[in-house]
């Protein structure tokens, strides 16, 4: 498998982008150095280094159990790391916990606000914890919950509950915003609605760190993405860089109507074809120049006496990056 070399090339491109996106003079919004956390016999976070600049929207991407939530909860000061350094806005949790709590906003996975309280009451409660921040009205408006202002939380849809969680995360006008799987469990329309909300926050220049296991979400929202697997960051860069690192911007998938093994050497010899893998009978090629490569692929397959039962192409996505790096589909997790 070509994973190792791929990872090496990713590391170098990631470091390049890191330097490029650093704001001049102000220091990073988030700095992690050699972070480790072990639960009983599971290594949840296995030596993570990360820098997120101010104004950036940064995504931690990976399957369930990759260590995203543990990492973000260490950043939020909810979990103590076994070792390593955490710095937010130049401060740390040991010395500046109270100040940090005032300056960050966060939304956790699966928080259920009291069913019998109203939207407005819930936001007002959270507003009361912050010395400074936006008004309750403003945060209701930002989260587009005006119509639900007097409704009880128990009667809200999943998407509305998630927007309420966002409103509670925003009332303190945070410099740094953490969102842990903000769209998990939402229907497609509610997801897009929430994405628009995050877009607006990005445009307002807020630093956002989010976790997700949806590749399309990371591509859509994040300036930079770190792909996590088994507690490690296995790739880091802009979505475009990561996709380019797969070796081709297109993915060709095909299946044959016969089980006898295909000799892949003629395929890999075609100009523009970067790699080949087989997953459950489905062959995948990453291809850089689709219009030139496809006729050659047909020829190479026909030359071996096979006929195609399936053939399709799509633009490479972060999903393909993950598959390329780990040999597994995200959905398999």
């Amino acid at each position: 498998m070509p994973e190792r070399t791929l990872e090496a090339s990713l590391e170098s491109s990631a470091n390049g982008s890191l330097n490029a996106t650093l704001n001049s003079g102000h220091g990073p919004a988030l700095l992690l150095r050699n972070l480790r956390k072990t639960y009983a016999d599971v290594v949840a976070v296995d030596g993570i280094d990360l820098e997120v600049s101010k104004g950036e929207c940064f995504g931690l991407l990976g399957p369930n159990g990759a260590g995203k939530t543990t990492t973000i909860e260490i950043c939020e000061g909810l979990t103590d790391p076994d070792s390593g350094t955490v710095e937010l806005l130049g401060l740390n949790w040991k010395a500046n916990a109270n100040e940090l709590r005032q300056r960050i906003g966060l939304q956790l996975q699966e928080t259920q606000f009291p069913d019998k309280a109203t939207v407005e009451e819930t936001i007002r409660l959270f507003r009361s914890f912050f010395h400074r921040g936006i008004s309750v009205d403003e945060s209701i408006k930002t989260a587009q919950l005006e119509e639900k202002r007097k409704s009880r939380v128990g009667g809200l849809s999943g998407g509305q509950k998630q927007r309420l969680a966002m409103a509670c995360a925003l009332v303190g006008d945070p410099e740094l915003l953490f969102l842990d799987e903000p769209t998990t469990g939402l229907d497609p329309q509610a997801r897009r609605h929430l994405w628009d909300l995050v877009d607006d926050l990005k445009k307002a220049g807020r630093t956002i760190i989010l976790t997700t296991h949806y590749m399309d979400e990371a591509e859509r929202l994040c300036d930079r993405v770190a792909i996590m697997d088994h507690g490690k960051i296995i790739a880091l860069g802009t979505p475009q860089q990561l996709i380019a690192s797969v070796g081709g911007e297109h993915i060709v998938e095909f299946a044959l109507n016969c089980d006898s093994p295909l000799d892949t050497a003629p395929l890999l010899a075609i100009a523009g074809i970067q790699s080949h893998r087989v997953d459950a009978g489905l062959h995948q090629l990453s291809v850089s120049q689709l219009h030139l490569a496809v006729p050659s692929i047909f020829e190479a397959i026909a030359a071996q006496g096979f006929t195609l039962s399936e053939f399709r192409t799509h633009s490479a996505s972060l999903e393909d990056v993950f598959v390329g790096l780990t040999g597994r589909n995200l959905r398999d997790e």
Partner: protein
Amino acid sequence: MSSPDSSFATSSLFQLTALRFRLFLREPEAIFWTFVFPIILAVGLGLAFRNRPADVLQVAATTPQLTQALATDKALTASTMDEAAGTKALDTGHIVLLAIQSPTGVVYKYDDTNPDARTARLLADRAIQNAAGQAAKVQADNRLIHEVGSRYIDFVVPGLLGMNLMGPAIWGLGFAIVEARQKKLLKRMVASPMPKWQYLASFILSRLVMLTVEVVVFLGFAAVAFGVPFRGSLWELAFICILCSLSFSALGLLTASRARTMEAANGLMNLVMLPMWILSGVFFSSTRFPAIIQPFVQALPLTAAINSLRGNMLQGQHLNQMLVPVTVLLAWLVIPFAVSLKIFRWR
């Protein structure tokens, strides 16, 4: 901007306490159990154990002369019927005694295992002997007592009050905290800049306010409906109620400090409260239990609560005369509170 900066209404302690009230008031069952149930219980017990005026006993005799003699006693209502009809009335419980005229005098037919019948036998015999001119040899007068404060309802009201101070404190705190933990709300709260002590204080503050309503409603009802006495200082009674409520809240906090699920919390709360419901003397005196378990019984917070409430209301005792139960309550306030702050699971 709708919120001025430093007003009381926007303070986090106020908002937290207001939330507790809202959630409580929007839970109809909670209102029933807290306010209505104790009154229903008191009414039921008051009716069941009310001290009735001395009963008038139904008796009968076989001759009009005997009937007339029996009727001279105000505690008896007499009628005339023949022996067959009288026996039938006895069997069906319409009368408790039948006086039968016999050639040699009178025969009383009654069930000697029935206390009412035995009383009727004594009264009937006295009435008949008096009518026959047998005056009592010793002059005797009666002085009747129906003293307020010695009735069962007087005894049970402080017991119910103690029980009612315990239940909502432990349930109210326990369920609300464990539910918040289970729903990850607790974790969300500590991830915000909320001062942790205010979260716990909001429970205690809201409890104290509701306590005022509960105690006033319940004791007011007991005073008006049953004339239950208040012999001690009302200020001291208020102090005891607050102390009890704080102690039970501390116990509720301890019960809820680790449990992750409602089922676990429910089990723990029952484990904590069941021995007290049985042993602490809500419905009968806790001193009825064997001497060997008395130290345990007396050390229970509900026993101490009820003993001090009864001491105040029924005996008019001052706090300095009830140092043992008051000290027990203080210990139950300080120790569980300190322990639960140490072991409390915020996530």
